[in-house]
């Protein structure tokens, strides 16, 4: 079976672009703190979501709604409402991370298909089967800390479908378990749906050099003409001991295009593209490339050459943890 391309959409226009470009599935979120890309000017209100689902379904695509932050104590109703509204909009599944919200959804919306978000950091078959047995989870988005052989081993031990990231931003930390951002800015992926939020970013040009700060901390400084990656905390340039450099991760983005055949052999069901914060033109281009790749694979043709470099952060690519040497 052809591998499923799961594509991000930060706006209705991006969703339409993704559908037209051939995405089998689009994931998106409501315009509030219930999803992990709660960025200014992004995401869908309820009316837009309903229309988006209709549009996608008319064109044979599915829509997943990410409700994958961890509900705030005292305000769980906001998240419960998001799940209920997603079901009312006719979405094909919700992507959840929080135990309490999984429990709530399994009990009160048993007919709504549940996927486990990467934010749940379910990194082995035992815990994935636990989520399936306990909350009826049908698919898990695997954390970006696993190698291809590890993914194959997981698939050998579970009936749960697996979805893996193949392109876009790369988290080097186990997602859903990182408070670096709130340590520096007060806003975190888990609680607020943002990492290294734009509201706390400052770019300061100084004689042709560009300083990027987050919450007042200098994350990196580039010379005139050098690529300027966004100051994501874990990809900054720091000093430890005698060494200065990108101690956690280089300002690279993930591109596992070449690994698609191996991922298919490893039993992966769906390939996920990161980037709900990116523009519709980005989305359209990336989807076309990956759709062409999986179609070629299915037809037994060689993979088309990649042409996505210009779209990536810092314009350097990595295959991330999929190759074990990354660690």
């Amino acid at each position, binding site marked *: 079976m052809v591998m499923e391309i799961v594509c991000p959409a930060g706006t209705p226009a991006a969703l339409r672009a993704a559908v037209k470009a051939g995405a089998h599935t689009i994931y998106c979120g409501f315009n509030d703190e219930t999803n992990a890309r709660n960025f200014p000017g992004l995401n869908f209100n309820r009316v837009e979501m309903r229309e988006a689902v209709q549009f996608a379904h008319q064109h044979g695509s599915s829509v997943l709604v990410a409700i994958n932050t961890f509900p705030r104590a005292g305000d769980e109703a906001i998240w419960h409402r998001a799940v209920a509204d997603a079901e009312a909009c006719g979405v094909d599944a919700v992507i959840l991370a929080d135990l309490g919200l999984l429990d709530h959804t399994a009990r009160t919306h048993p007919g709504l298909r549940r996927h486990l978000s990467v934010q749940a950091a379910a990194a082995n078959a035992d815990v994935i089967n636990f989520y399936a047995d306990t909350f009826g989870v049908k698919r898990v988005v695997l954390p970006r800390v696993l190698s291809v052989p590890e993914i194959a081993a997981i698939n050998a031990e579970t009936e749960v479908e697996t979805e893996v990231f193949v392109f876009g931003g790369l988290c080097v*930390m186990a997602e859903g378990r990182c408070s670096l951002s709130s340590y520096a800015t007060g806003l975190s992926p888990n609680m607020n749906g943002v990492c290294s939020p734009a509201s706390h970013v400052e770019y300061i040009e100084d004689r042709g050099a560009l300083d990027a700060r987050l919450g007042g901390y200098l994350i990196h400084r580039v010379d005139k003409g050098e690529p300027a990656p966004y100051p994501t905390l874990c990809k900054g340039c720091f000093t430890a001991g005698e060494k200065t450099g990108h101690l*956690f991760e280089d300002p690279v983005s993930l591109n596992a295009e070449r690994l698609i055949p191996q991922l298919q052999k490893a039993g992966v069901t769906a390939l996920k593209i990161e980037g709900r914060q990116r523009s519709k033109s980005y989305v359209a281009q990336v989807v076309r490339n990956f759709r062409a790749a999986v179609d070629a694979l299915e037809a037994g043709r060689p993979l088309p050459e990649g042409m996505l470099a210009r779209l990536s952060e810092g314009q350097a690519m990595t295959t991330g943890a999929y190759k074990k040497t990354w660690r």
Partner: protein
Amino acid sequence: MELTVGPNQFFWPAEGWSVFYDDLTRSPVDRVVVGELVCSKRLPFYQDRIPDAISKLVGAGKDVALTSLALVTLKRERRLTAELAEMGVMVEINDLTALAHLPEPCIFSVGPLVNVYNEGTLRWLAARGARRICLPPELPMVSVETLTKVATDLGVAIEVWGHGRLPLAISGRCYHARLHGRSKDNCQFACEDDPDGLDVLTTVGRPFMAMNGVQTLSDSYACSDHQIEILRSAGVSALRLSPQSTGFAALCAMYKQRIAGTLPRGALAQEVLTANPRLRLSDGFLSGSCGAEWSGTTNHSP
């Protein structure tokens, strides 16, 4: 309010490890969590000492729990996690994988690396057998208050991160190994040179984080000195003190005095800073606009 000593986050020589837990038998803490949290590769160096440490601590009247790893991926790690319950002490889960292996019914503790952010999660864990939960350090006071109220009704004790470098992130990649140009599988235990983590600074020299193998910690030492009264009135039942390589016995004693009211608010932080003037403290997750903030000062160094 009681004191819990969290699992040691760092890699210490086995002999020093034993001395540390020996010392704890004589300290005024109520509960000790032992075991390896961060990296399964460290465990063989002191694994055989754990049963002895547990029995000495139990003999000294301490409650003892055994932690799971924070991130379980390898087959060997899954096996270790499955075996936790066989040690005969309460298990503290710090990765939900451990829960998958606990028999039902079974009572257990939940560590700060499990995401307990709301009442729904707390209720679910309580129904599954959780009797004690150390909340994630990232939570603000208003969440602590809400959750503690719910927990009290359910008979679950709530703990809050009381002192020590904050566990901010865990990864599949070992940063100590990367720093030394090695892979994780051939790390040569680079993290053992830094018994309290290796300082990570911005390129203009501002302290920011600390690396500890696959873990990333805060540069600052979280300190609950200024929060204890509010935490107590919220119903929090214990503070968690995180092991550090020096001055830990004195720190435990000071927290005991602070809780008992024989040390005034602010004096504990003052003592800590006098003993080590280069240390930076924080309590911003509980009461500030970001985690790194410290209510003991209004200005921050650049």
